[in-house]
């Protein structure tokens, strides 16, 4: 068993609330509930009566009846915001008491874009930890929608503690180039709900190596960069390796290419009671082989009670300074070639050579010939990883009392303790 300075007192219960805002947000929530029997409390909020009556969410608010006269927002965020103000009392009653509030919306329309900042602000004032999970629209939806999404995102940034921001363009372009918009949305939704359930697991996990709140916030705080996300699971032999492969194949990691650009990365590994430290080390070693040396890596590990549960690897992060570029430095192929496109590769089957696999990247004109040492360097997963959110105390000796990093604002740490 690893001893690790606990950042949070995880004895106390966390109450998570998942809010779907607007059509897109509600779709994602519904998918989560229908596909995972999601355990979290959920709340659907919309101006559109119809979508409200069909949702699986446990609580529903049809907002802004006076403002919109049931006619929707016409894609105007101002109307969306007015509608939310009109129903602010009702919203407040439904969200108060949750320690963690996930706000899920497709930005660009009227309802989600207009109401999300206000809902985030209200949740924040209630003292909840606010995590926004949002998409920005496809470029084919037009400039107006992009602008509306951008300004809404800026507002949300003021109140949310963490933001997972996904670009529809990127998800679509990277998934199925010829897919219809409907299908594409389905795939996006899938990624979004996976990221939400991973995050929820991460913040409520009890270890053996919990991810501390500041670590998580450090990785997800800034919304300007869109989010890197990948998640995979596997059972049987070499399950760690296979789960990682699947995770890396995520379009949001640009099939693994973006890993090299990651400035901050959170790796979360969970598994059945048989999960061993050796497996964790192996996964970490494989990941670190593909990371830039300056990347900051945070590791979390949790074991479930359920002996039949798979080993899952979740990777979340932000790009480093460099924006995404086409050609990437060479990455030494340390893993065996990957199977392609099944969500979970059958663990026993021999993986076959694939054309577009993660490691067969365009070789950059040897910009960094010695970038990667050939010998695998072993990442020490046992060390506590440096937390941030320490602001002006970033570079000086941390104030640690009874295992807690007191440089992190008290009010942030209290949120999950309540």
């Amino acid at each position: 068993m690893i001893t690790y300075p606990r950042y949070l007192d995880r004895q106390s219960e966390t109450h998570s609330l998942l809010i779907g805002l607007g059509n897109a947000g509600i779709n994602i929530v519904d998918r989560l509930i229908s596909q995972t029997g999601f355990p979290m409390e959920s709340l659907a909020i919309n101006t559109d009566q119809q979508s409200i009556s069909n949702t699986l969410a446990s609580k529903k608010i049809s907002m802004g009846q006076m403002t919109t006269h049931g006619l929707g927002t016409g894609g105007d965020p101002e109307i969306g915001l007015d509608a939310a103000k009109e129903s602010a009392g009702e919203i407040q009653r439904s969200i108060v008491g949750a320690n963690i509030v996930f706000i899920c919306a497709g930005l660009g329309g009227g309802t989600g874009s207009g109401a999300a900042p206000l809902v985030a602000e209200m949740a924040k004032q209630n003292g909840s930890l606010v995590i926004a999970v949002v998409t920005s629209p496809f470029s084919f939806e037009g400039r107006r929608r992009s602008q509306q999404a951008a300004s809404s995102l800026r507002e949300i940034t003021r109140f949310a503690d963490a933001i997972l921001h996904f670009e529809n363009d990127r998800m679509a372009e990277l998934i199925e180039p010829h897919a219809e918009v409907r299908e594409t949305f389905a795939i996006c939704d899938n990624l979004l709900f996976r990221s939400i359930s991973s995050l929820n697991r991460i913040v409520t996990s009890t270890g053996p190596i919990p991810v501390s709140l500041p670590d998580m916030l450090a990785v997800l705080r800034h919304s300007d960069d869109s989010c890197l996300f990948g998640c995979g699971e596997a059972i049987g032999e070499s399950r760690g390796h296979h789960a990682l492969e699947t995770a890396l194949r995520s379009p949001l990691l640009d099939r693994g290419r973006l890993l090299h650009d990651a400035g901050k990365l959170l790796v979360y590994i969970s598994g059945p009671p048989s999960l061993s430290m050796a497996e964790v080390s192996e996964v970490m070693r494989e990941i670190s082989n593909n990371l830039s040396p300056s990347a900051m890596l945070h590791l979390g590990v949790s074991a479930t009670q359920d002996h039949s549960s798979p080993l899952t690897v979740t990777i979340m992060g932000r790009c480093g300074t460099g924006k995404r570029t086409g050609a990437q430095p060479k990455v030494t192929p340390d893993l065996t070639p990957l199977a392609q496109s099944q969500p979970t590769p059958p663990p026993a089957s021999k993986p076959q050579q694939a054309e577009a696999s993660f490691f067969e990247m365009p070789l950059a004109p040897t910009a960094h010939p010695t970038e990667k040492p050939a010998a695998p360097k072993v990442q020490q997963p046992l060390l506590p990883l440096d937390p941030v959110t320490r602001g002006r105390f970033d570079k000086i000796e941390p104030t640690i009392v009874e295992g807690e990093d007191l440089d992190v604002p008290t009010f942030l740490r209290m949120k999950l303790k309540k």
Partner: protein
Amino acid sequence: MAREKIHVGLEIGTTKVCAVVAECRRDGEVRLLGVGESPSRGVRKGEIVDFQNASNCVHDALSDAEERSDHEIKSVWLAVTGSHIESSNHRRSVNIEGGGEITEKEIEDIASKDKEVSLPKDNDILHSILQQYYVDGREGVIDPIGIGGSKLEADYHIIHGVVNRIQSTIRCVRKIGIDVEDVVVNSVASAQILLDDQKKASGVVVIDIGGGVTDYIVYHNGVVRQSGVIAIGGDHITNDLCIGLRIPITRAEKLKIEEGSAILENLSGAEKITLKNDTGFSGKEIDRSMLNHIIHSRLHELFLILRNRIQEVVPVHLLGSGIILTGGCSLIKGIREVAESVFEVPVHFAHAQSVTGPTSAFDNPQLSTCIGLVKYAHAVDADAPQESFFNRFISSITRKLHLI
């Protein structure tokens, strides 16, 4: 023998460097001649991180003090703090030769057993403070000289710290040609000016919340029972506000001082504070409730940590003279209410007693440490044997202090 002498106290604080020039009268009164100050640069959590900048600030503060007091400064008494400073209580013993009366020799023998205290290898003792003597197991002996017995024991409160880190503070002063008479831990210095014998006897805690650190010292039954440093201060509150309200650090500092409060009661839900726009900052509305909540959380947590530390040695409700708050952060509105809710004993603010002079500086909690230094110097003058000075810096600060 008591003499009239001018002493200079110097604190290189996280927020400000300050020097106090004062004359100590025979009757124990301290008369301020001048106070020099300079904002600090290169100091974090009470320790120097940028040597050159810090040294310049020390120079500025000392020049300022010279000018105001019309006294040429050659040497100073220096306050030190930092998270590396720790303390512990020890019992030690000597056998009384021939089973006769206890003499000066046994007292000196027992005092010199500092060397036997086991410390981390980079540490050395800053203060070794006598708590009480035992003669043949009988406790509470105040003056054992002349008492007969076969075994003399004594409890000491030892304050120690990392030698390198203390030396870097000393070097910062020596660099500009000023001598360091001695170094004194912040809390020990502040207690000199804030406490009298009655308070020490009935039990009291001094808490100095500065910019980078909180120094505390606990007295009970007339002796030091506990002391320490927690590297939390006003900078943390400022940083919390910066992160929580998403405003620049300079605005956060200003907001804290002008509007900051730790009071949660009777907040009308929607009260807003408007921050005007400024270069590089587009202005903003802040919720009063959020502001107070952030400050309250930090102070409440700090007091809880302190309460636990105090409880290790004395039940808090036995502190007859309660808690005395000082340091810049004691000026935060509502801090007393937060402290009272945690400690459940009366909480007072520092008023430096028995200090007179041309300034009202001694009302300023930010100067408690510095004025305390002068008082400490005066007490040492009056009591300590000359030969223990200037040997090694560390041995010079190791005193058998009845006077603390």
